[in-house]
Structures are given as C-alpha cells and as structure tokens.
C-alpha cells in the first residue's frame, strides 16, 4: 500500500462545490491523509517541521488546488518556499523526497479546450504547470501529469459525480500501486489515462 498525502489548498473551500464533491469522505479512506493548508495555517505561518514529517510519512503527494490566475493559491507557493528548502528537499543533502510521486490535482473554470495555443488561454495546462514540474524535478521526485476537473461552472451534477468517481479510482489505484509510470506519462491528463485504462465513460 502506498500512503497518499493530499495537500489541499483552497482559501474558500466552503464555496467550492467541485472540491467538496471531490473530497467528500476522503479522510475516511485508509492510507489517505488530507492536509487542509488554509485550515491549518490561516495566518500563513507554516509549521515546517510538521509538514516535513507528513511528507516523509507518505509516498504519494498531491497538490490539490483551484487554478487561480494560471497557478495555485498563494499559500501553496508559501508552502513550497518554506518546506522545500535547500539542504532538505534539494541541493546538497536534500534527498529526503527522492523518488516520491507528486502531481497537481486542479479545478479550473475554463474548459480544457480553452487551454491551447489557439484557445482563449493561449497555453496548455502542462505549460502553465512547468514551475511545479521543475520544482518536483529539483527535489528528485517523480512528477505525473495533472488530474484536472475543468469547466467547473458548466458542470452538471452527474458530470461532477463522474469526475469524483474517477478521482476515487485514481487514489485507489495509486494506493494499491496498480500503475505504470511510463504508460501514464503517455497521457496529458491523469483523467485520460484512467478513462482509457479502466474503460470508463468520459464524464
């Protein structure tokens, strides 16, 4: 069993139907730790030691956040700056996160189609996520493609529940180790890998 740590970063969780649906009852699953950063550090005063202990105790780390202005909410940047420090996460002696798996699980208002060279947002999601990818690489971690629930404003309840089911499945497979990193890396989104691999209907 791989243990999973969800670093959840949302300044207005109570207003986010999508994220509430994605995370519903998630804590009750064995081997999953939900670390609600805005709840723990409303004053941005991150307890670095606590965070490091959590990272060490888990093999798979998920940055789950809404996609604000093509990036994550401010507290996740604060977390990255403070926790992933030179000498611990990277640089000399910074091997503590080596070979752990990490990826972004994001929600965005814009649809997937709007994130392309011809689209309204002009760049793809993986392009916008480059800083996260390189941070993971710097820390010698394995960075997977993102899991994304997009066009959230237009989602029907059924579609939303479909996405939530895929997310559950993803967590389950990751926990059980039922995945092949090389195969996964052929996909742009983790969603696509799961739909294809498990033969699901796209929500």
């Amino acid at each position, binding site marked *: 069993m791989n243990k999973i740590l969800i670093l959840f970063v949302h300044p207005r969780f109570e207003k986010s139907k999508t994220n509430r649906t994605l995370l519903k009852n998630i804590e009750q699953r064995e081997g999953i730790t939900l670390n609600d950063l805005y709840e723990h550090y409303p*004053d941005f005063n991150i307890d670095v030691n606590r965070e490091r202990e959590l990272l060490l105790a888990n093999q798979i780390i998920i940055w789950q956040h809404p996609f604000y202005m093509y990036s994550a909410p401010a507290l996740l940047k604060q977390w990255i*700056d403070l926790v992933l420090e030179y000498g611990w996460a990277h640089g000399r002696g910074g091997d503590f996160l080596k070979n752990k798996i990490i990826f972004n699980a994001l929600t965005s208002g814009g649809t997937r189609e709007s994130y392309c060279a011809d689209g309204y947002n002009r760049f793809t999601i993986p392009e916008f996520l480059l800083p996260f990818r390189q941070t993971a690489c710097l820390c010698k971690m394995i960075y997977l493609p993102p899991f994304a629930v997009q066009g959230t404003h237009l989602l029907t309840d059924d579609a939303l529940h479909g996405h939530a089911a895929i997310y559950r499945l993803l967590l389950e497979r990751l926990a059980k180790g039922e995945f092949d990193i090389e195969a996964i890396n052929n996909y742009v989104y983790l969603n696509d890998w799961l739909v294809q691999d498990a033969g699901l209907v796209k929500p």
Partner: protein
Amino acid sequence: MISAFLHDALIYLAAAVFFVPIAKKLGMGSVLGYLFAGMIIGPFFLGFIGEEGKDIMHFAEFGVVLMLFLIGLELEPANFWRMRNLIIGTGSIQLCGTALLLFAVFLAVGFGWRAALACGLALAMSSTAIALQTLREKGLTGTEAGRSSFAVLLFQDISVIPILAILPLLAVAAIQAPASEHNTLFAEMPGWAQTITLIAAVGLVIVIGRFVLVPFLRFIARLHLRELFTAAALLIVIGTADLMMLVGLSPALGTFLAGVVLANSEFRHELESDIEPFKGILLGLFFIAVGASINFNLIISKPLTVIALVFCIICIKALVLGLTGRLVRLSFDQNLLFTLGLAQVGEFAFVLFSFIHQLNILSAEWTDMMMGVTAISMTITPPLLLINEKFILPHFGVKEKEVKEADQIDTHHPVIIAGFGYFGSTIGRFLRANGIQATILDNDSDRVDLLRKMGFKVFYGDATRVDILKSAGAEEAKILIAAIGSPDINYDLVKKIKNLFPHLDVIVRAKSPLDAYELMDIGVQDIYREYIDASVRLGVAVLTKLGFRKYSALRAGQKFIKYDQVALQQLARHRHDLSTYIFNTREQIQLQEKLLTKDLESSPNVHDHAWDSDLFVDKFADDKRNPQ
C-alpha cells in the same frame, strides 16, 4: 503567656479554616463564615472563648485600620477628587437622614435628647468591612451600587472624627474625667486648640507621607529584603495609627489618609500586596470577634426588645439608603443591592458606643444592648444579600423581564458569554458581526439593561450559579466563553461547568500565566491570556518602527506567540516541583524569570531562515569548489 496565645490562635484559626470553606461552599461568602465561626466558638455555644473576646475585638479592629489603609491606597487623590460630589452628596444625605430619623424614634420611645442623638449618630454608621468584602467577593465593586456604597462608606469613615469631637458636648455632666485610656492630649485641650491639633495632625500625615515616607520606602526597597519591606509597610500603618490615637483621632482615618498620600507613589502595588494578607486575617479575626460578642443571653432575656430594635434600625437605615439611591438615580436592582448592603450598623458603632458610655450619655445596659444589636445587624447582612440575590431579584429585578420574554420553547444560542466587560463585549461584538448570536451572562444590572436595549439576549446574575446557567441554556449550548474579569470567579465558573455541563466546550480568558496554570490543572485546553496578543502586536509595531520590514516583524510575532505557548505548557508541567508555598507575587516573578531564561536558551527567532538566501550563499560557494 505564650502558650495561652498559641491556644487562642489555635482556636481562632481552626474555627476560620473549618467554617469559612463550608460557608463558601454553601454560597454564603466568607464574611458569614467568619461570623458563624465566632458564634459557635463564642461563650454561648462552645465557650472556647469567653470574656477575652472583647480584647480580641480591640486587637482585631486593627484589621479595619489596615483595610482603610488599603482603601486609601486604591484611591488616588485624583480619583478621590473626581468622586467628591458622590461622596459628599450621598454620604451626607444618608448620614444626616438616618441620624435624624433614629433620633426622632429614640426620642419617641423615651430617650433623653442627648442619648437619642448619640445613638442616632452611632447607628447611622454602616460596616465598611462587611459591605466592601461582600461586594468584592461577588465581583460587584465596579457597578453603580458598588461605587455608591463605597462613597457612602467613605463619608461615614471620615465623619467619625467630627462625631467623636461632638460627642463630649453631649455629655450630661460637665465633662467627667474620661477613663484613663482616653486621657489623651486632645481631650485636655480647649476647643480651639483641638481644632488646630486636628488640622496639624492631618497635615503632618500628608507632609510626612509625601516627603519622608516615599524616600524611606525607596531606601528600604533598594536593600532587596522582602521581609524588611513588609515590616516597613506595617510600621507605616501602625505608626500612623499610633500618632492618631495620641492626638485622639480615629486611627482608621489616619491610615486612610496615609494610604491616599502613598497611592501616588511607585510603591502602591507592593504595599498593597504586603498588607493584604495581614488585612485579610485580621479582618477575619474581627468578624469572628463580632460573632463571638453577640450576647445570646441578652437576646433570650429580652427577645422582643432586641428583635424590634434590630428590625427597626435596619428598616430605617434601608429606607434612608433607598431614598438616597433613588436620588442618585440607581436602577432598581442596583438600589436594592446598595440598600441591603449598607443597612447594617458598622464596626465604628462599637467605638462610638464605648465612647458614649464613657461619657455617661448612655447606661451600661443600653450600651450592651446597642452593641448586641450592632453585631446582630452585621450578621444579618450577608443572609439578607443572599435572600436578595436568590429570591427577590429573580422576581422583581432585571431578570424578571427575561423570564417573561423567554418562552418555554426558546431558541437557545450555541454560544454563552459569561462576563461582558471590555473583553467579553469585544467577543460578543465580533461574533454578532459574523452573524453568531450569543447568550450573555453579566452581574452588572445597569449593563444588562443597556445590552437588552441593544437587542442582546442577556441574563442577569452570578454566572457561577447553576440555575442561572441552566436558564441561559447551558444544557443546549455548544460553547461557553468564561470572560469574567476576576480570575477567581472565572475559575469557579470553569470548574462548575466541567462538573455539571461536561459537554460544553469551555474557552477561558486568563489574566496571568498563573491563572493559565490553574486552568490547565483542571484540564482546560482553550486558554486565552488576555495580554499576550496585544503585547506581541505592540512589540511587532516597535520592531517596525525600528526599521524591521513589516512581514519579518509579523513573522517574528507569530513565532513568539507559538513559542510562548509551548514554553508555558512545559513550565506548567514542572510547576509542581517548585516549593509549594510561595507568595503569589513572588511566584509571578519566579515565573517571569524562568520564561526569560528560556528565551535566552532558545531564541525563538534565530531559526527563522525562511527565504534567507544569505544562509546558503556559503553552501553554494562550497558546491562550486567541490562539484558533485
């Protein structure tokens, strides 16, 4: 001799230690406990103390002297001046009104006019000791009733001197040689010289206080011998009292003056904490002596006379007090408290009656009777206040409206705030601004009235009373905020809640680290020390003014608060290793010292290297030299 003393001390202390906790547990307050203790060990019941009770009374009156010194200390001249209208207004109305009414009554029952006037004046006194002690225990000193009571009592205490001066004029025969102990300088002088002596003595106290005592205390303080400072404090009080006795004035008044003079000095708090324990014990002793001096034989032999007298005097005093309260526009509840709190005859009456007797104005039998009546009326006060609190106010007071308003199926708020001073009201306002309604408990009826008008749901009364907690919805609420100003009352409340309403989430305001420790000992998790946030925020502002970047200063503040919390918890665990009996204030200092040492050992901000690139410039340089 010494064994007799030890024996007496043993009886008094044992009685106090036995009865006062029982009285406290029964919710009667310590004064009643002492009085009962006195009655039980007195000549009528157990007879442990007999006639020497009277001597003890003289000794214990020194407790009253100490109390007046402390009252003076708390009363800075500026404060005193601000209250002058209240003091003179309410005081003179109460004193003159009561004295005149009693004068008329005594005339009517056949006293001579001299005796009637003397008795009227003596009986107009109320008991500072009982009234203030009771008000303080109930946390009511800050209310309107508390202030008015204080003003009246102060006026009475001051007017003892002119009364003592007037009484000789009432003497039947041309001044009989008074008993030798009263053969003072004062009494032998002609009238004009007495006045001059009086003014001179008061002036002397003020001048010495200003120009001799303060430098003297500074000198003593520099020696850093705590017990010497205590000795010096006692010396000041006893010296002043002695000087006053020498010129024939009331020692209580003299020490009161000395207290007022020293109130402005930097030693005010130190003097207070030094004298406080002596005052407490002696005042307790005084109450015991009062209880013991009650002549039950007299009551049994002339029950009707005694009962009628007590009843009449209390009624007349209450009547005048009630009218005075109306005049200064006290609300109904406050007025009731004021009226019943001061309706007894005070300790100065003992002094006045024995003087009256010496002047042959009143017969020995009547003097005894009056002293008995005085003691009984003092004993009745705490039960009267208890009855007022438990039975009268709930039906007629501020609370009544609430009972009517509150339906059986009342919606209960999830939060209860006990204590609505600045601290509690800020919480209440904040919660209300965020749409959370709270039920409020407060014992200041004026404030309760105001809050009701502002639309708050307020219960009036002592928050530590179970029935009030229940009617405020303690059984249905989720959170109780204990925000009462007095740490002791707050602690009582928390303890009760833990026992009786264990489901309630208790969040507590603490004044000092020591309060916090006591709360931790009974398992409270959410403790908010009222000073910590404000002082750290102020500290952050200082750093900023000194040129720190604001965010760095803010982070330093955040880290410090976190660290302080941990340090407090660690010290709490080791607290019981310390010697168990240390003076309260000294324990504070020791704690402060420990906290400061801990700061030095693990400076909370040294390890903040977030975003600090300087820190690894060297390491990078190192990397270049030895590429991996």
